[in-house]
């Protein structure tokens, strides 16, 4: 069946490794360039990164803090990655996140006095549903009239954000000086991780991290092993062939963008239920947008999203220690983040470095 020149494939593992190498090398180059910048600014890069490492992984509390900061990025990263897989750029994850947070803040109070496991499940489901609903209108517009999702999801982000702004300063405002909602009762919050893993000390890491990791694995499975994921990827790669194969492109688009919205909604839910325990105007530090960078770094691979989110979480967790101990301004982490994004986008550069390094190996593989 195979021709004489066709040899058994040795590409599979090599290709996988190379796929994985690009982000890793990009991160390495970003750290290298940042070191030079830190050096030029008159600081010691080694001390800076040592301090950052200490601040992010130096002990139980630090690891917990990294997990805490990685959690929302995992959800938004997954959201953006799922969209990209279906050929959709959900730039509005931030808005869906706000709506998820709103639903948690509202339901958490409404469900006061009910059993905790029930509340957790209900609030998660509701948050995902409202995130999906927030993406549904842009999805419908995309499917029916071709309105571009970058514009529409962005517009819905503004609507969502200012809706929350108004609600926390008006109808849902709790008594007190600060415009914020009432604090959730304990039965409407996510348990802290250190209750199960004492070594995480008193960190604020919460169950959301575990939910995020499990969800990433689940989404990976959905994309690869279900008809739904298959259709999403098919439409993302080639809508014409998908259509010819009987896949409804509009229906798949709607489903994919809603799934993306649901995932982003969960970021808001877990931030409210696990971290702030209430809703206020600034409860998200742009997690929806950082999620884009996380998805890019992960090359839209859900498993990769876990790693990318932890990296970004670690950068953010370690920034304070870096400023404190090495006296390097914490803003440097934004430079590193920007460089990583830039380098991943400019993937060719990383590929070139890999090729130069791996030339000998490639020649053997032939």
């Amino acid at each position, binding site marked *: 069946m195979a021709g004489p020149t066709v040899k058994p494939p040795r*590409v599979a593992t090599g290709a996988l490794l190379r796929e994985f190498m690009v982000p890793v090398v990009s991160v390495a180059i970003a750290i290298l360039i940042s070191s030079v910048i830190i050096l030029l600014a008159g600081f010691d890069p080694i001390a800076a990164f040592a301090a950052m490492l200490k601040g992010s992984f130096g002990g139980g509390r630090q690891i917990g803090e990294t997990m805490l900061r990685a959690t929302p990025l995992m959800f938004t990263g997954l959201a953006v990655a799922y969209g990209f897989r279906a050929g959709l750029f959900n730039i509005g994850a931030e808005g869906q996140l706000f709506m998820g947070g709103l639903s948690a803040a509202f339901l958490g109070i409404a469900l006061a006095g009910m059993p905790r496991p029930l509340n957790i499940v209900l609030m998660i489901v509701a948050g995902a549903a409202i995130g999906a609903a927030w993406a549904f209108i842009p999805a419908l517009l995309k499917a029916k009239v071709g309105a571009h999702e970058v514009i529409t999801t962005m517009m819905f982000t503004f609507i969502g954000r200012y809706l929350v702004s108004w609600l926390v300063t008006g109808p849902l405002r709790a008594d007190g000086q600060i415009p914020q909602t009432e604090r959730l009762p304990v039965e409407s919050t996510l348990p802290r991780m250190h209750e199960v893993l004492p070594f995480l000390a008193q960190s604020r890491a919460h169950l959301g991290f575990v939910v995020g990791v499990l969800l990433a694995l689940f989404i990976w499975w959905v994309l690869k092993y279900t008809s739904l994921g298959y259709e999403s990827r098919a439409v993302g790669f080639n809508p014409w*062939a998908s259509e010819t194969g009987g896949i409804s492109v509009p229906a798949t688009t709607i489903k994919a963008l809603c799934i993306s919205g649901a995932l982003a909604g969960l970021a808001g839910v877990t931030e409210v239920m696990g971290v702030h325990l209430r809703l206020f105007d600034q409860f998200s530090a742009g997690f929806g947008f950082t999620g884009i960078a996380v998805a890019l770094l992960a090359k839209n691979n859900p498993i990769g999203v876990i790693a990318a989110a932890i990296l970004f979480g670690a950068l953010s967790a370690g920034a304070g220690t870096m400023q404190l101990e090495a006296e390097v301004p914490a803003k440097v982490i934004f430079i590193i983040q920007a460089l990583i994004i830039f380098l991943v986008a400019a993937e060719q550069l990383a590929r070139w470095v890999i090729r130069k390094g791996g030339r000998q190996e490639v020649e053997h593989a032939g």
Partner: protein
Amino acid sequence: MATPLIELREVTKRFPGVLANDRVSLSLHPGEIVALLGENGAGKSTLMNVVYGLLDADGGEILVDGSPMHIRSPRHAIDLGIGMVHQHFMLVPPLTVTENIVLGNEPTRAGAIDFRAAREAVREISRRYGLAVDPDAVVRDLPVGTQQRVEILKALYRGARVLILDEPTAVLTPQEVRELFAVVRSLVAEGLSVVFITHKLEEVMSVADRVVVMRDGRVVGETRPADTDTAGLARMMVGREVIFRVEKKPATCGDTVLEIDDLHVLDERKLEAVRGVSFSICAGEVVALAGVSGNGQTELVEALTGLRKVKSGSMRLKGTDITHAHARETIEAGLSHVPEDRHRRGLVLEFDLMENTILGDHRLKPFASHGVLDFRSIAEVTRRRIADYDVRTPSEKVKASALSGGNQQKLVLARELGRDPDLLVAAQPTRGLDVGAIEFVHNQILAERDRGKAVLLISLELEEVQTLADRILVIFEGRIVREFAAGEASDEELGYYMTGAGGDKLAETIEEVGADDGRTDG
């Protein structure tokens, strides 16, 4: 003999798992046309991409004007006087002809592009080589043949002495092919050398001075058209005898499978492309729709396969009304579709062979149950089809984009026929394929017919129509203008009706079609 312009010595190129070029030696002299002949995947394009600096050779050397050269990039190749026109054009559609030609090499005056000088330069080259083209036309609006001419002009503008044409006729109409040949001859008369990559035997016979035949990455022979014939070339290329006429039993017409009644379909511009087409196909019959491209065939096929809305009329498949069915419903009703454009509609190139195999059946058993894909049975079915349809691939896990055109088409056929349809709609099923693959596809289509299936064949190739059809419908401007039984009409007659049967067009048509006629007997 004089020093060759280009000489390849034992050039070797490997891809993971494939030896694409195995110690290939080749020389090109000034003023000659060398045809590089071989099946899809024989390594022709790879070899020329090495010469053009797009790929790095793993071994061997390239000599330009007698001195060894490492051609690092296309820019370097251009500097050495080597130009290449790819199968897929590298033009910028919204720009004008002139802008495209000077792109990357713009004449400037005081820092600004000197459009007047550019236009003059384009006119001059176009005049010198007899390549008529309007320098101010926007490329997007030009027919494919003219776009190709722009590509050639671009290479000439940059001072090409060697022109590599990669499957230049794949996208052309017969008329455009003749024009291209005339252009190639005039270029050679001006002292250029041309490498002509192809798998079409008649082209080699009519245009080449010398033929180099490749198979499985190696040069297997070299000859001159005068010393051989198409059968001889085919034997060298495929490595065995090729039967051009597929043996065919007379059709046995069973129950009516497809019934189309007074169908009207609009095109993108809301103009009526199909204007009242009616016909039926019975089980065990191949009906061919013959016509010149753009006479409503594409719209008819899209309407039939659920990809385009029907304006009026009706279609029934085995009694089921499919007039307004979606693609999925037509598949469920028993229709299989080999699309005209396999890269756009037939395959998801980024998917592996397994994922491509289940496209359309990805929600059905045995590939999926309760929405979960069963990769064990998917792999099993894929492997079986790869074997049954002779798809040449290292494994079922490679991406479809890694296969050659012929193997991609076999994969599409494997999927569509593997579904065991009642009706096969095959649009241009052998476009761009080499003789070996064409023979295979033709045999599969006839085997399907002999199993009692109905087949609708849409083809621009008269030879294909004549070979396969039990009944021929000639379509012109959205209407079926004539029906013939198999063997009833000559190519000339078909051509006459295909072009609208205009009185003064008749003689021309007969002449044109007649010129192509020799190929069938080879």
